[in-house]
């Protein structure tokens, strides 16, 4: 299994894309059989997952925008999506 730690560089899996659904007023990740509804923090994390930034860098960036980002939030979020094949990570 892929390790999601502070140095991991996450990106969406190739078959997944994010959309903003006007009818619901919410963001969602779309994959062939699954829709993951995102809150605005989740959407902000996904937008920062560009295969360049590390989890640590995304956390720093997110804290500059929100004042309620807990330690480990980004890592947990990414790890959950990796486990569900919605994201992939690189290291180094």
């Amino acid at each position, binding site marked *: 299994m892929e390790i999601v730690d502070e140095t991991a560089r996450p990106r969406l899996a190739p078959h997944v894309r994010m959309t903003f659904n006007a009818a619901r007023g919410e963001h969602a990740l779309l994959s*062939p059989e699954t829709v993951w509804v995102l809150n605005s923090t989740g959407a902000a994390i996904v937008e920062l997952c560009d295969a360049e930034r590390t989890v640590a860098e995304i956390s720093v960036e997110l804290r500059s925008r929100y004042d309620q980002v807990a330690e480990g939030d980004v890592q947990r979020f990414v790890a959950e999506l990796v486990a569900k*094949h919605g994201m992939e990570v690189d290291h180094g």
Partner: protein
Amino acid sequence: MDKPYGLLAELTYSCPLHCAYCSNPLELDNYRDELTTEEWQRVFAEAADLGVLQLHLSGGEPLQRRDIVDLVRSANQVGLYTNLITSGLGLSLRRAEQLREAGLDHVQLSIQADEQALSDHIAGTPSFERKHVAAGLVKQLGWPLTLNVVLHQQNIDRISGILDMAEAMEADRIELANTQYAGWAGPNQAGLLPSRDQLERAEALVQAAKERLGNRMEIIYVIPDYYSKYPKPCMDGWASRQFTVVPNGEALPCPAAHELARSLDLPPANVRDHSLGWIWEEAPLFQQFRGDAWMPDPCRSCDRKDIDFGGCRCQAFALTGDAAKTDPVCHLSPDHGLVEAAVAAANDPNSPTERTLIPRPQMGRPFRKTTATQGTTAGTPVTLLPTVLKGQHS
């Protein structure tokens, strides 16, 4: 009431394959009066307005529609995630390139077996080689590849070879789904339902493959509900999260609800007569089994009623003739004996090992007035609304 997330668009019941487990309705010729290009385009736009995010383009064989590229482009333009569910027959390089350019997000390719003779036998037509070509095209054009395998008596012992083939095709995902006994699979059930020994071997192989492949290929295994204690949470409840529009425009809360819908004698819910919004929110067919007020016992007093929603309405109808009954798969159902008898027959050493299956026949010529203009208009890229983040907390 929630808004629907998914729409299954069964574009046509025309199909070059004759799989005996096909979930299409028995009365295929009732669906020849197919929606036009413009009618489907209106349906897709209304679906997006209604909150639908995913569009599954299926059939029959959706590539039998000459306007498939235009349909994909329209769906993409209104922001839908488009998923083509295909046998691969009809996917030429040119057609694949057009679909890519039109914005098709994902391809699901059906696989019958890992050997040519068995695969062509199950499909009822030479198709094995063409599926390999189609899989190659999907990867070559940069799509993620999902393989759909319907499991039954004739191919479940080939799981190991099927998984090896999927790896060789560089599939990203493979869905190994035991047959649901809807449509043509209903009358063929005795020749399709695997034995308990077959299932146990298959499940051990799937588990080992999951451990071996890790993240390289996602394996989704759908258990056979005939061997389960409780029914599946079919469609996450009737008219709850997704729905289907069939080739002639009838809207159904479940892809297998054709005959059930007719039996209820309710006013038709057809996209030719009504908006999708009205159908989802108001149509009597969609209201019929929504929520839990319709439930009989044992469901009504069961603490699992919010987990499995009484199971599959279509299965209850197919097996008992009454769509409002508890799914007979449930061990608490008064009709569970019907399922037990089928399972007993599948495990009886004296049962015939090879039964003759009824092939899904070819549909008559569809009535179509399509106005396809292939590859002439440039696709407009979908732009996501910019996200306002600063100062928002959730």
